[in-house]
């Protein structure tokens, strides 16, 4: 039986800003998901038994905060009424932060909503790409939202998209986070997805630049212990490298329904959440069915799902056979394989070279640079004693 770990719900495709690297094709559409559609989704998810260990719900794929707090109050109350007693359901928003005010902080605190803010670093870097439809930078409004969260004690993390310019500025990025009291950071690279073609991927030396960026950022973080609590790329890489043999890598992005996505019309997709909304004649735009017309449990038997899964599995088999990094990756990201290589049934991508291989290299290189590596215990003991945390 499938297990839904993450449910991505598009409350509206509309976004109030117009980032230059955005891959969402319908972001001027101000449509809103109907309450009946939400009811159909959640009642079926809970009845299916596919989420009997808990559920994370992310409201995204459009700016979730363009809808009023009252919309979510009604939706969350309905979901609470539908869910089995005792089942943990955690809601999260990924937001551009421009609309955060006291009313949002009150609601986020009350409903214990996880918040991720998209901000690309200091103003000159952020405003290069994160702009309004008239082309004006959005930094001032985003940082006002971040500061409001800080003032109100609302926990959050940030996601910063790295471009060639920010990859050359690790210290500026680090200083920015510290100055703003941001202590949990995630880095994305500008990817090629849908109609968007990454300018960063076309840059010569992008892999080396990413390695250098993370190396310096990690060094700065280690020199300021306790300031940054979480650097996703570093922490995830260590978790995957230092894990026991017997713990296999679970590739959520390649497991049917582990991530389930629904757009505002009720269309359902799975695997990489970015797929929903993108066009593909080969895969019927990745839509398995519609929650207003179809039964969720029937979608698991759709021929389209079997065809996508077979192609994704064929790609993973290539990764398993030929990639040195398979044990830290589990076969990669279907959406990147499709839009970089033209098929799910392929292996290496620029995305995986940057975000998996070079980060793994960095952790292994650091481990091998420690005093005592290959020299016996004394020098390594000295290194450990010098560590600021004991």
């Amino acid at each position, binding site marked *: 039986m499938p297990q839904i770990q993450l449910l991505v719900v598009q409350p509206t495709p509309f976004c109030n800003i117009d980032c230059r690297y955005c891959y969402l094709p319908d972001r001027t559409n101000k449509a809103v998901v109907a309450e009946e559609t939400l009811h159909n989704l959640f009642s079926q998810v809970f009845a299916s038994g596919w989420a009997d260990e808990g559920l994370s719900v992310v409201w995204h794929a459009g700016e979730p905060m363009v809808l009023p707090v009252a919309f979510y109050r009604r939706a969350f109350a309905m979901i609470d009424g539908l869910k089995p007693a005792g089942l943990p359901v955690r809601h999260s928003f990924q937001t551009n932060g421009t609309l955060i005010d006291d009313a949002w902080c009150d609601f986020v605190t009350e409903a214990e909503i996880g918040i991720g803010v998209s901000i690309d670093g200091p103003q000159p870097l952020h405003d290069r790409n994160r702009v309004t439809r008239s082309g004006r930078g959005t930094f001032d409004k985003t940082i006002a939202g971040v500061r409001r969260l800080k003032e109100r004690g609302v926990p959050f993390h940030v996601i910063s998209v790295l471009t060639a310019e920010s990859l050359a500025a690790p*210290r500026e990025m680090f200083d920015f986070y510290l100055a703003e009291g941001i202590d949990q950071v995630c880095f994305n690279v500008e990817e090629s997805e849908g109609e968007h073609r990454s300018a960063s991927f076309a840059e010569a030396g992008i892999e080396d630049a990413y390695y250098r960026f993370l190396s310096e950022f990690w060094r700065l973080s280690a020199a300021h*212990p306790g300031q940054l609590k979480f650097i996703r790329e570093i922490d995830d890489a260590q978790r995957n490298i230092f894990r026991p043999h017997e713990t296999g890598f679970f590739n959520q992005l390649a497991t049917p329904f582990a991530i389930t996505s629904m757009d505002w019309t009720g269309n359902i997709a799975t695997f990489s959440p970015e797929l929903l909304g993108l066009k593909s004649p080969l895969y019927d735009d990745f839509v398995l069915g519609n929650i207003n017309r179809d039964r969720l449990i029937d979608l698991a038997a759709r021929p389209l799902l079997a065809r996508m899964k077979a192609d994704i599995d064929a790609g993973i088999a290539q990764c398993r056979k030929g990639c040195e990094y398979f044990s830290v990756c589990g076969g990669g990201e279907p959406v990147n394989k499709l839009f970089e290589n033209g098929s799910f049934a392929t292996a290496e991508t620029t995305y995986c070279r940057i975000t998996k291989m070079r980060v793994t290299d960095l952790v292994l290189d650091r481990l091998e640079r420690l005093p005592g590596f290959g020299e016996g215990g004394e020098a390594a003991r000295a290194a*450990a004693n010098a560590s600021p945390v004991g």
Partner: protein
Amino acid sequence: MSLRLKYQTVLTQLAPAGAVGVSLALGAASPAAAAATPTDTQPSVADKEKVSERLAAVRDAVAALADEKTAAAKAEGRLAWGNWGGGWGGGWGGGYPWNNWHNWRNWGNWFHNW
């Protein structure tokens, strides 16, 4: 000295600092630390083992460390890992510290790719 023993040597010394301490020690192990500008580049792979062999050796080292600590804990009548002093297991609910790195696994990876 085998690759596994090399990793085991450094991990043995770092482990008592816990997962955060390991990360800090690795973060500080940069050649750029002594330089005025960030010049770190990836070392040549020509003289290194294959990545898959390095990863396997790291995990062998982690397993050997786990075995040592489990045996020591049993000998002292303590629960393995969970109550081991120094922070490796403490605070992580037992097991390897990186099994529950920062508790973010509870969030799935919803913030992974947007």
